[in-house]
């Protein structure tokens, strides 16, 4: 029987890892994801998993060992945050290029400097071009559900890509919520057995992996890799549907919240979406047609789907929890407005950079954004394209 238990985000992730029971976990501790690794270490110590747990000396070695272990042939998982992800950066590209479906939980945290252990998305936004699928969770339940789905998405035959399953540091990782924990057997049934492709442990069929690849072939290989992201988008939708059928919680590329008739739309990812839902309810009670578009999959980026979802809006506020220094706007804004432009959808959009280094965002802050949007819609453009939310001048 599935059970409902109070759990922190990190505990929920560790619980999903226990149920997935990967062959190899190679990990290194870093705040705020440490609890995942240490909870899992206890599962190993207590014989609750079959996993070979490799306690590497750095995140660079963690991702190197994970990539190699996946190449050997088997299911591989890991968890990290912030500087840890940054130290993996070189290898992230290689994991994706070698088409290794490694699953990495990223508990989002600000990058230094100055050093800050709290939430923002600068770590995973920095890795957005590395070739990994990226899913962002709003709450503890989603963090758990996303991780289980990540297994099937990444390892699908026409995808074969690594997946980052992201949750907000402290806001979700250290928050207790009621979690529906599914049965171990049901989770195992859902993920199925791992199918290795060209495993290095196949001595009879030796292959050379990671060769020197120059101007005569490298480009074709990159183009081939490019073609995996369409099927990846499809896989996120199909695995989300299958998950909904089995467990009753349905997932897609995004979640539309009060969006059908919405005039004023906030677009956000992760825990901010939960806060925004509160604001939407407040405004709906006043008769304001407020709606929320929560993006779950940032990679692959569902450009057409976003344009379709937003086309009826009068004004949209796109919220970035990361700064792209030197750019005019945040990364989510840049991609969403590009998607709208390409789809021929012309809506005034404003960009908010919020919550850097864990700065609190309240429902009132978000209500304020909706109020701004009424003005943006009336004037046909925002007073300025980019604003910092809740920052002292």
């Amino acid at each position: 029987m599935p059970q409902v238990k109070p759990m922190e985000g990190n505990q929920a992730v560790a619980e999903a890892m226990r149920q997935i029971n990967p062959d190899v976990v190679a990990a290194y501790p870093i705040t705020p994801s440490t609890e995942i690794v240490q909870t899992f270490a206890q599962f190993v110590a207590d014989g609750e998993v079959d996993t070979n747990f490799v306690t590497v000396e750095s995140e660079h070695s963690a991702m190197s060992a994970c990539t190699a272990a996946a190449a050997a042939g088997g299911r591989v998982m890991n968890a990290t945050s912030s500087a840890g992800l940054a130290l993996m950066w070189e290898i992230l590209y290689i994991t994706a290029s070698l088409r290794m479906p490694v699953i990495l939980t990223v508990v989002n945290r600000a990058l230094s400097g100055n050093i800050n252990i709290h939430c923002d998305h600068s770590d995973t936004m920095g890795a957005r071009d590395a070739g990994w699928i990226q899913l962002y969770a709003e709450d503890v339940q989603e963090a758990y559900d996303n991780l289980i789905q990540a297994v099937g998405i990444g390892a699908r035959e026409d995808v074969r890509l690594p997946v980052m399953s992201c949750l907000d540091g402290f806001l979700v990782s250290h928050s207790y919520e009621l979690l529906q924990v599914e049965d171990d057997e049901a989770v195992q049934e859902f993920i199925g057995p791992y199918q290795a492709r060209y495993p290095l442990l196949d001595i009879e069929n030796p292959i050379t992996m990671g060769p020197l690849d120059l101007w005569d072939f490298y480009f074709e290989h990159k183009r081939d890799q490019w073609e995996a992201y369409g099927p990846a988008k499809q896989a996120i939708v199909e695995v989300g549907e299958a998950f909904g059928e089995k467990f009753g919680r349905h997932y897609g590329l995004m979640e539309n919240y009060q969006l059908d008739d919405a005039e004023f739309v906030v677009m956000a990812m992760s825990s901010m979406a939960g806060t925004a839902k509160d604001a939407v309810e407040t405004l709906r009670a006043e008769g304001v047609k407020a709606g929320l578009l929560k993006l779950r999959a940032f990679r692959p980026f569902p450009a057409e789907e976003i344009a379709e979802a937003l086309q009826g809006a009068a004004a949209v506020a796109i919220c970035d929890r990361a700064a792209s220094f030197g750019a005019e706007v945040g990364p989510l804004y840049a991609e969403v407005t590009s998607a709208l432009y390409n789809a021929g959808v012309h809506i005034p959009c404003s960009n908010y950079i919020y919550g850097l280094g864990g700065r609190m965002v309240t429902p009132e802050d978000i209500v304020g954004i909706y109020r701004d949007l009424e003005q943006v819609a009336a004037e046909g453009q925002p007073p300025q394209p980019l604003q910092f939310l809740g920052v002292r001048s």
Partner: protein
Amino acid sequence: MPKNLKELSHTPLRLTGGHRLCPGCGEPIAVRQVLMATDDPVIAASCTGCLEVSTTIFPYTAWNIPWIHIAFENAAATITGIEAMYKAHKARAAKGIPLPDYIDPDADYKFVAFAGDGGTYDIGFQSLSGAVERGHQFLYVCLNNEAYMNTGVQRSSATPMGGNTTTSPAGSVIPGKQQHQKDLTACMAAHDIPYVAQSIPGRWRDLTRKAEKAFAIDGPTFINVLTPCPLGWRHAPEITPEISQLAADTCIWPLYEVEDGEWKLTYKPKEKKPIEEYLEPQGRFRHLFRGAKGAEVRKEMQQWVDYKWNQLLERCGEA
């Protein structure tokens, strides 16, 4: 029983010909000798470097065994990731869960990493130190040509004093590299792993026997092989084995092993030759034979070699 020369010569080549390493390169000689030392299945990892770029130019490969390259500084993490997956499957099998059909249940798989001195002494040292501390079953072979040869002969911490490289050039004021090389083999012995050795490609019996020993151990092992580089050392390609022999005969690169903490010389030159016999055939040291400054550097090098040799003799109980 160690294989004799005839048996070795009949061992199928795991690194075939047709690769694009330079004529006279010490690396493929060392790699073949190491891989000939076991008949068990072997999976290899390499770091970025000459061996990697010259043996795997897509769509060709010179490897007849499973081989992987991920990056420069992570050969040890890479090979231990593979070993970890193998051990994971074997541990599941011990609980009655069937092995994947691509794993031979009766074979005893071996894991070997080949990495250059840059990938071992410098950028990959952390990865190596961590991997041996964790106690994985693997052999790490450092193909030490004493500089970053793949990028065009830059100094590494394995470059000997006086060595002329493109980042420690011999100039009118500074005569090549200013520091002695790092004693990495002793560093690895200090990790208290079951087996550590130094060898050269010029004495096949020495290297193959050491590789045999290492492969037989269920734990981390390390062999540091001095692999002459005709391009970077600027010597004639046909004297590669002789140059490596001179490194042993001058005690610049002594041949020894450390087995379970026991230090042992595996070759003691009948007569310890002066370092000049090793330095002279190599263009990278030519500037040391001009003027008073060069003579000073040679003197300091000889003193250091004597000091290290006496230290080694003491560790081996031969002082």
